[in-house]
């Protein structure tokens, strides 16, 4: 009997211990604690979201309040900062180029030995609709009437992501010819641009298409640009004649290589086909190559090395009183022009550079085919602010006649309103 009683003891002990550990109150308490913990975490998350939404609501409320305040402000009070007002007024900007030139030359050229408003650009730009944008530049100067420098439409969403421009524009040939004056490193355009394309670069009306792509790697990017323009060159340019009906076609292959996050090399190949003769078309050819290296350093420092070369392939006729001299025939000529430039920005406000120019004469008698002009220029630029700069330039020019001319330029460039150049 005793043995049977003792044999039940372990069972009894086991049962008692099981009952103690399976106390429902303890389990329930544990479960409740777990639930409370989960609810607390969920509450913290909801609180954080509520705080975020409250901040957003406050932001919207303040925006509504400010819009209500702005709605009572007149245009005059806004001071012309039209981009901050909810209207359809385009971005408007004005860029003034005021230049003083002193030379040894006796010629009464534009701006020679005087201070002048060499150019005033009034710039408008805005989206027309979801597909197109219009950019307009009207230029005025002390020397000529107001003229359209650029007025072109840019269309997006073309097939194959092609970028199209239609209207009057600086065609993207080379580097300097495609730039507005205020984007140049120097007071004057490089001599080859001035003589081949025109005193203010190359601006004509036409159609330009371009596409950008990569081949061997995303750090090497190519851009193909082709265009069709009305005939002629810019003011004083000798590449093409004045006949607008003899069109110009051009092409450019640009290759840009990101050497690093702070350096890039650009190599461009250019070709143009047009006419210098009102009786023919496409008899004048030009080719060019351009090279630019840019290195961006710390704290505004930047080094630019840039060079362009253009060669014309053209018929040349030297006329006397509108007639070919006896015994003199037209001949093919290949005058070339080039420049090489180095510019270094060594601080937020200062940059300095040098440029060499060489251009062979066009339309000269065969025995004078090798006559040329050259220039050495040194320039110093002071950035008064992001919107005003001063530039001092000295230039030693060797003219076709062999004479030398020492020239001094002082240029002030000032911008008001919105003025953003399209990327080159």
């Amino acid at each position: 009997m005793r043995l049977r009683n003792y044999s039940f003891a372990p069972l009894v002990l086991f049962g008692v211990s099981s009952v103690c550990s399976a106390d429902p109150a303890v389990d329930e308490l544990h479960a409740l604690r777990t639930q409370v913990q989960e609810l607390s975490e969920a509450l913290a998350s909801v609180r954080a979201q509520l705080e975020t939404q409250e901040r957003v609501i406050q932001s919207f409320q303040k925006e509504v309040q400010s819009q209500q305040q702005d709605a009572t402000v007149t245009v005059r009070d806004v001071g012309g900062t039209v981009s901050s007002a909810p209207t359809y007024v385009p971005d408007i900007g004005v860029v003034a180029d005021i230049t003083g030139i002193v030379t040894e030359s006796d010629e009464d050229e534009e701006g020679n030995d005087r201070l002048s408003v060499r150019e005033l650009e009034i710039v408008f730009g805005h989206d027309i609709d979801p597909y197109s944008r219009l950019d307009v530049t009207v230029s005025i100067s002390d020397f000529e009437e107001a003229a359209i420098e650029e007025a072109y439409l840019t269309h997006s969403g073309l097939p194959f992501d092609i970028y199209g421009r239609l209207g009057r524009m600086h065609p993207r040939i080379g580097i300097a010819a495609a730039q507005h004056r205020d984007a140049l490193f120097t007071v004057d355009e490089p001599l080859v641009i001035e003589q081949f394309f025109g005193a203010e670069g190359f601006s004509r009306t036409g159609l330009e298409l371009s596409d950008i792509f990569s081949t061997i790697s995303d750090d090497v990017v190519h851009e193909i640009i082709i265009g069709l323009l009305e005939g002629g060159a810019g003011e004083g340019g000798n590449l093409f004649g004045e006949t607008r009906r003899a069109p110009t076609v051009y092409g450019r292959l640009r290759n840009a290589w990101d050497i690093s996050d702070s350096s890039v090399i650009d190599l461009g190949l250019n070709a143009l086909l047009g006419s210098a003769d009102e009786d023919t078309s496409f008899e004048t050819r030009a080719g060019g190559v351009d090279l630019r290296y840019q290195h961006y350093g710390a704290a505004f420092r930047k080094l630019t090395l840039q060079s362009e070369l253009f060669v014309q392939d053209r018929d040349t006729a030297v006329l006397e009183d509108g007639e070919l001299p006896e015994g003199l025939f037209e001949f093919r000529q290949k005058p070339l022009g080039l420049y090489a430039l180095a510019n270094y920005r060594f601080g937020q406000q200062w940059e300095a550079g040098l440029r060499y120019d060489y251009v062979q004469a066009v339309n000269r008698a065969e025995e004078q085919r090798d006559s040329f002009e050259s220039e050495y220029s040194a320039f110093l630029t002071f950035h008064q602010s992001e919107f005003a700069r001063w530039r001092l330039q000295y230039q030693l020019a060797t003219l076709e006649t062999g004479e030398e001319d020492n020239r001094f330029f002082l240029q002030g460039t000032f911008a008001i309103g919105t003025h953003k150049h399209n990327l080159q």
Partner: protein
Amino acid sequence: MKHSSVVFALSLSLVSAQAAAAEKLEVVSSLPTYAALVQEVGGDLVTTSSIGGARFNPHFIEPRPSDVLRLKRADLFVHSGLDLEAWRGPLVNATGRAEVKPGGERELDLSRGIHLLNVPRGAVSRSEGDIHLFGNPHYWLSPENGLIIADEIAEKLAELDPEHAALYLGNRDRFRARLAGRIEQWKQQSRALTGAEFIGYHDQWIYLMEFLGFTMEKFLEPKPGIPPTPRHLLLLQQYTASSPVVGIVHATFYPDDAARALGERSGLPVLALPQNVGEIPEAADYISLLEYDISRLIGAAQRGRSHE
């Protein structure tokens, strides 16, 4: 047979890898900090890049042809909005893509959810310097704005890629939890130093100052965008002699000569702080960037207060 099987297997894996890579969203950001935040939220589902390099002043980036090409191909363009990035308009125009223009379906203006500070009222003129017309645009430096930015990025990625919306939102939640935890710690660390005053080079620290409860009313630039002048440095030196300024702050991409000159004359520490992820090695991600900046500001404030 064996050789051709190996070749086939290799080809298959290559195609699969390319397909997997092709499924990733390509997100281009204007600034490296945004690219880092996109990476936090997007994880392995996105490839990110930025137009502006980390070492450069975001006001003055010069986009390259490669940037135009990247943006042409991008599934999403993330940017600051406002008028910080004046180069953004010409860059977007050069792509010829309406989708990445303001309001386009593949652009994300991060300023939309931000409560902006220093919004000018009434007439504005550049006689007051290069004033930002819509408010101070350097908002990403407030960690609380970082929470908002993460929300916006997650919502946009989910909209563009609804199949993986849960992943984006999950990544967002995890990032938010980490950042929220750090926010609490930073607030605790700065609480006792409320009101500590700093001098800045450019007015780009206002959101971080507000978050920490610090102040920055004086700048080395006499007016926004105008470089420091000797006369202005003298005025600041006189100011520091009679005010409890605890330090001078400038972004690493600004010249440091004016800050060092004032520091030497006033005895104040000069803090060169990164503004963007990747600007220095210690700022490898968003939280590390803020940790670096905040720890140095708090350290300077503590030292300044202990000298009083």
